[in-house]
């Protein structure tokens, strides 16, 4: 339909396609390509020996192993926790299920490095509040739990990542046709057998897909490991890349190590994304209906109360407690003082918001970066999605491939690639400016925008555009009058999907910040590193407040629309 080019000329379709390809190439493909080139191509020749040598270095090897250990632990734990809770809130007669479901999704919006910060305050071996209570008041010799350990890192990551599995499995269990289970029941199978033989196998693709998502996220995850691991020398791939480049101020050797590690991350991510696609396509025919049914509910009987208490304790312990601790510590005069009314005030919050240059800059930077990145990525995303979903034009395959890239490139890889691409070697030097962070944010959040916008575009039937063309509208007029108004909700969704997470972004910003271009995430992290715990906590509190308020407004808005 859009092939309006006359012979020999360049039509609107070609211009849009070219522009879309250019954006993805410049923002995503070139940085990733530069990483591979820097890793494998030395002095104009392929050099695999050096790559192997770097991998076999003790520190890099250990970081690889650590990433694997942490990712494996986090994935296993989150899958068990997520599946169990998903089953509880969809398939049993647990009380207050709606409330529970909403609460289990809260960790989605909480930044995990702020969570890690809270747990550090609670469970660091000597200074943590719980450990001090354990040893001081209860008189034990040893601290209850040392958060600066593999177990600590894995547990904190589980708390914040399990919703990925939870939400997928909830969806699968809600959509599952109950007649599948009922027919098993009629054939004489007990509930335990049904769950084992019917329910779990049917939900397996969703479980797998959620688990792979967590593995991808955890392997490339910076915040939690940075906050909890460095104390005991536990580094994973992203934290090692950061540490090397940060310490050496960008020396050749450190960049080299970084690119090798980043290449490994990209390849692992691509493998995971591929596996996830397989798992999901297998699930497509198994869970037949898109409609929702009223699923069969298991009577918990005597277990009802204990399981309710378990859920409430879990929520109190993993969501309420850390959040409260952040706000309380943010109010303390000095870190270490007990929580009494005399020691608590709003002074830190006031100082951070109005008087302290560093944090004021950080808040301003994050807001403007988030706004800029969200706007640009939203518009670029809608254009690219339009070509991929709607247009029939030669060369689209290239764009489809490029469109997959943002999904499989972790944040720390983007940061490193952006450093390589924008440090003046190939044109403008943006290093140490706020622009390099903006470019990196656009690359990092492009995937969100593509997802939201292509979902919205798929709802816009081709015939709506064709009807406009037949009414005498040119392609541009049809886009402006028909397509844009109809995808506006998707664009809005993309905007907030980018704006809110960018307010708390750490992984990318930490690699790219300069003294004047700190973001909220960087400021929280560096204040904490410098021992300014109360100010770090106060800023974290403000960030949490911004994020939760924003999310609540959006949810309200979204509900209002769908009602």
């Amino acid at each position, binding site marked *: *339909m859009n092939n*309006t080019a*006359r012979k020999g000329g360049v039509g609107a379709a070609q211009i849009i396609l070219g522009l879309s390809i250019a954006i993805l190439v410049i923002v995503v493909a070139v940085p990733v390509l530069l990483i591979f080139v820097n890793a494998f191509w030395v002095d104009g020749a392929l050099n695999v020996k050096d790559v192997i040598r770097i991998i076999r270095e003790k520190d890099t090897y250990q970081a690889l192993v650590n990433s694997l250990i942490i990712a494996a632990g986090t994935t296993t734990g989150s899958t068990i926790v997520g599946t169990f809770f998903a089953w509880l809130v969809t398939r049993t007669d647990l009380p207050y299920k709606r409330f529970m479901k909403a609460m289990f999704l809260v960790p989605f919006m909480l930044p995990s490095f702020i969570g890690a910060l809270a747990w550090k305050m609670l469970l660091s071996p000597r200074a943590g509040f719980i450990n001090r209570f354990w040893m001081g008041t209860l008189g034990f010799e040893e601290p209850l739990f040392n958060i600066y350990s593999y177990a600590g890192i894995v547990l904190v990551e589980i708390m914040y990542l399990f919703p990925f599995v939870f939400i997928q499995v909830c969806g699968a269990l809600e959509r599952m046709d109950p007649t599948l289970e009922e027919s098993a029941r009629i054939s004489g199978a007990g509930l335990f057998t049904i769950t084992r033989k019917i329910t779990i196998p049917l939900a397996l693709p969703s479980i797998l897909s959620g688990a792979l998502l967590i593995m991808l996220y955890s392997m490339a995850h910076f915040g939690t490991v940075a906050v909890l691991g460095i104390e005991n020398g536990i580094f994973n791939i992203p934290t090692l890349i950061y540490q090397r480049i940060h310490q050496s101020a960008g020396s050749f050797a450190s960049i080299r190590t970084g690119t090798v590690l980043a290449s490994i991350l990209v390849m692992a991510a691509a493998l995971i994304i591929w596996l996830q696609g397989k798992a999901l396509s297998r699930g497509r025919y198994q869970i037949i209906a898109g409609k929702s049914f009223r699923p069969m509910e298991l009577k918990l009987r005597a277990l009802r109360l204990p399981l309710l208490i378990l859920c409430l304790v879990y929520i109190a312990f993993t969501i309420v407690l850390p959040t409260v601790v952040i706000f309380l510590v943010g109010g303390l005069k000095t870190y270490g003082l007990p929580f009494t009314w005399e020691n608590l005030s709003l002074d830190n919050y006031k100082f951070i918001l109005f008087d302290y240059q560093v944090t004021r800059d950080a808040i301003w930077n994050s807001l403007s970066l988030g706004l800029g990145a969200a706007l640009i990525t939203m518009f670029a995303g809608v254009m690219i999605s339009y070509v991929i979903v709607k247009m029939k034009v030669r060369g689209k395959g290239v764009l489809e491939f490029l469109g997959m890239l943002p999904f499989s490139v972790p944040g720390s890889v983007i940061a490193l690639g952006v450093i390589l691409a924008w440090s003046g070697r190939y044109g403008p030097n943006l290093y140490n400016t706020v622009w390099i962070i903006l470019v990196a944010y656009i690359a990092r959040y492009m995937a969100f925008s593509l997802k939201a916008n292509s979902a919205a575009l798929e709802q816009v039937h081709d015939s709506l555009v*064709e009807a406009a063309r037949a*009414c005498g*509208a040119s*392609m541009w007029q049809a886009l402006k009058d028909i397509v844009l108004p*109809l995808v506006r909700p998707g664009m809005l969704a993309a905007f907030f999907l980018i704006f809110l997470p960018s307010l708390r972004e750490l992984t990318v910003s930490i690699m790219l910040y300069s003294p004047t271009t700190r973001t909220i995430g960087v400021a929280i992290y560096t204040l904490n590193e410098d021992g300014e715990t109360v100010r770090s906590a106060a800023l974290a509190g403000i960030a949490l407040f911004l994020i939760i308020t924003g999310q609540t407004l959006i949810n309200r808005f979204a509900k209002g629309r769908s009602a």
Partner: protein
Amino acid sequence: MATIDIQGVSKGYGSRRVHADLNLSVQHGECFTLLGPSGCGKTVLLRLVAGFEQPESGSIRINGSPVSDPAAGINIPPDQRDLGVVFQDYAVWPHMTVLENVAYPLKLAKKQRREMEERALEAVAMVGMKGLEKRLPSELSGGQQQRVALARALVAGPSLMLLDEPLTNLDANLREEMRFEIKELQRKLGITVFYVTHDQEIALAISDRLAIMDGQGRVRQIGSPQDIFERPADVFVFNFMGIANFIPVRRVGDDWLVGQGDQRVPVGRPDGAGELYTVGCRPSDVRIAASGPGLRGVVRRASFLGAMMDYQVEVDGVIMRVALETHEAIAGGLMFKAGDPCALNFHDLLWFDSVSAEDTGGA
């Protein structure tokens, strides 16, 4: 003058051929229907005419001037072809009110505000939607949405309208009502209509002329509704136009015998000189009696369908369907049960040679 001339058009997707060397012309002021089974490529042809798709070769002319001709490098985009198009799924824009939908073509034509409103209201009234101008499509029924689509296609006063199965998604009563309205509008406005459907009832009711397309995208017959119904060119057309009995017939000496038995066909004889023929008739063209002259058979199934009785009768191994009105059956003592013997006679029989009978066009 609004005419369509399609000459030697070929179109395919990948390795799948949809049309090869297709020729068709639509005359000024007529309602021309393209009728064929689903998947035969009739919608593709409409999209080629509208300019949503490009032919690989051949040419399409509208009003005598070429709009698609790859050999000459001509490809006029759909917005410059001056057409009205109505889609199967209505394609009414959900974010605009009825009036905004209908006025959109005028807005694009940069009409004065007053004129725009007047003509849009006129078009809304013409399709019987007066009073609903401010509604959003989500507040309309399917039939009402289709009326909006019709008004939108008509409002700019195109001389040529393309309709792609516009009634398929409506319920039976509405479908019947709308098809008369479309016909009425076409006659009143004197426009040329190119209508695509798989529903032979609509096609017969609405068309001045129609073309029957088979499953491979070949045109089998072009003619008036009566022509097509009464004088089908081949077995495919006959079969496609309604429930049909096909009776294999063989020549023995000067006689024509049914199936493998030895009963003679009671009426007519073929023009050709072949040995094997197929005889076709509609269930309503068969007269059934308890005894008397005609083909002897046995009732295998008797179904009471309300106003009609439907019998399945076996004659020497050949199954035929026979339909008659129930009151006639009762009056004439023709209420048979399964297993009853009977005699069949025919109003009319169509003779097809057996070669053409096997070519069902993939339908």
